[in-house]
């Protein structure tokens, strides 16, 4: 990761077929280090499929996914998490019966040092590690603004805080690349505003590369430096927000009618 010219994340002609349906077709994506990159497109465009491929839930039918130059396509999700990719989910997937704090602690699990025997016997390495984990988790919660609810059950949080907790949990895995799947979905404008600030903020503070799926045009246009537009699995445009907004194909495929009125 020393070489800053290597892009953080690259997709090379990634294709995903489900039976007869091609969900993603020959996607090329190049996310530079430290970027805040957007992946947009209408419903069914294949955005979440891309996330599932990058995070290892799906194995692409063909093509390569490179994390700092190393191919990670086809690895299991937990291996990919170890390599430094973390994600959130479009339909929030917290550990609902665990406390807010425990949710974050699970995110820290993969960086553990103490083995099972040390843990069961409460040997010193395990004990100092647990203490350290608790401190790290508490600090993360504070940075994300959830320190006051750390002992609540995750399912008891309001929607906006659940989304934030998902981000905190992902950050706990100490990722290099963070994938955010529609983080603003279902939020009101004020919450969305807060969230946008949070996202740029954590990018800088944790020196992350962020790939963001978004439906809400305002969010992407507001914070992403570059973006790729998908439609029916095809890449129809790539560029800066200004370029995208002027792009004929994008306007036709995506921004047409309702979306323009909404903006």
């Amino acid at each position, binding site marked *: 990761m020393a070489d800053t010219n290597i892009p953080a994340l690259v997709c090379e002609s990634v294709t995903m077929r489900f*039976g007869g349906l091609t969900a993603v077709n020959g996607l090329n994506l190049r996310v530079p280090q430290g970027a805040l990159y957007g992946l947009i497109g209408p419903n069914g465009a294949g955005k*979440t499929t891309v996330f*599932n491929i990058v995070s290892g*839930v799906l194995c692409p039918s063909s093509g390569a996914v490179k994390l700092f130059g190393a191919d990670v396509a086809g690895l299991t999700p937990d291996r990919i998490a170890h390599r430094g990719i973390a994600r959130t*989910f479009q339909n929030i997937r917290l550990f609902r019966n665990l406390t807010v704090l425990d949710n974050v602690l699970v995110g820290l699990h993969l960086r553990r040092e103490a083995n099972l025997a040390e843990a069961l016997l409460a040997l010193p390495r395990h004990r100092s590690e647990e203490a350290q984990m608790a401190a790290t988790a508490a600090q993360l919660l504070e940075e994300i603004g959830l320190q006051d609810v750390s002992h609540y059950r995750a399912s008891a949080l309001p929607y906006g805080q659940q989304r934030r907790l998902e981000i905190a949990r992902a950050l706990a895995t100490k990722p290099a690349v963070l994938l955010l799947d529609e983080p603003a979905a279902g939020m009101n404008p004020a919450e969305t505003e807060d969230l946008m600030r949070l996202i740029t903020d954590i990018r800088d503070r944790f020196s992350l590369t962020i790939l963001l799926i978004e439906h809400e045009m305002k969010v992407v246009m507001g914070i992403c430096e570059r973006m790729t537009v998908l439609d029916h699995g095809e890449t129809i445009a790539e560029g800066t927000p200004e370029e995208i907004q002027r792009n004929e194909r994008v306007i036709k495929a995506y921004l047409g009618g309702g979306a323009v009125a909404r903006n």
Partner: protein
Amino acid sequence: MTLEIFLQNAANGITLGSLYALLAIGYTMVYGILRLINFAHGEIFMISTYFAFYGTAIFALPWQVSFVAAIILTALLGVVIERAAYRPLRDAPRISALISAIGVSFLMANLGLVIFGGRPKTFYRPPIFQAPIELGGVRVVALFFVIPLLTAVLLVALNYIVYRTKTGLAMRAAQWDFDTARLMGVDVDRAISITFAIGSALAAVGGIMWGLRFAEINPNMGLFPGLKCFIAAVFGGIGNISGAVLGGFILGFGEIMLVAFLPGLAGYRDAFAFIVLILILLVRPTGLLGDKQRVKV
């Protein structure tokens, strides 16, 4: 092995396969609509044989009346079980419903033990089913033709109901998605009740045929034939009626042939179905005719 013995075994295999198929349909229909292993289905089957038994033995009904009454009562029993034990848990975690199903299964098996007694009862077998028929040097009783034929007829009727009637359409719609089906005006509760009624009625037919074939019935006869038939349904592709029938036949036929050709393995007969299950789930989890299902992320 002579041809005669082979044909005799084939007849046994087809008969057992038909019985398994009748039971497997109930599992596959319920799983298709509720995503639940109806553990109690085997006990529904067991109780149906007792309905028929008591009809002839205590109420001295003509066997035709007794059998029909048993089928109707069993269908009602299936509907009642769904109402009482599964419906309240429809929105609960699936495992709760599974535990409930296991509970119902045990409750019925032990109620059977308490009410019917543990000693096996002799099922009344009308002579008409025992009439000998000779075919190509093999001598079998009429029952060996009745069972597969009846199974085939019921299967045609079931296919008609599921694919050609409005009720069937409602059942298929509910299989996909309760909420959407409701929005389309489908009475989901009714569709589920009908599914249980049909599945249980078929189990009753299977139960009566079982009684006619094996003559003895006991309160413990439900669990394992039941589980085998669930396996048959998985084998064929869960949720798929033709698959359940195919799976039932293959399993029944295979079980008989295993014992016939490899008598050394006869002791492993009861493990056979489970080995098939594990292999099928490892190699082709969707079964022979099933569709692919994936977890949505």
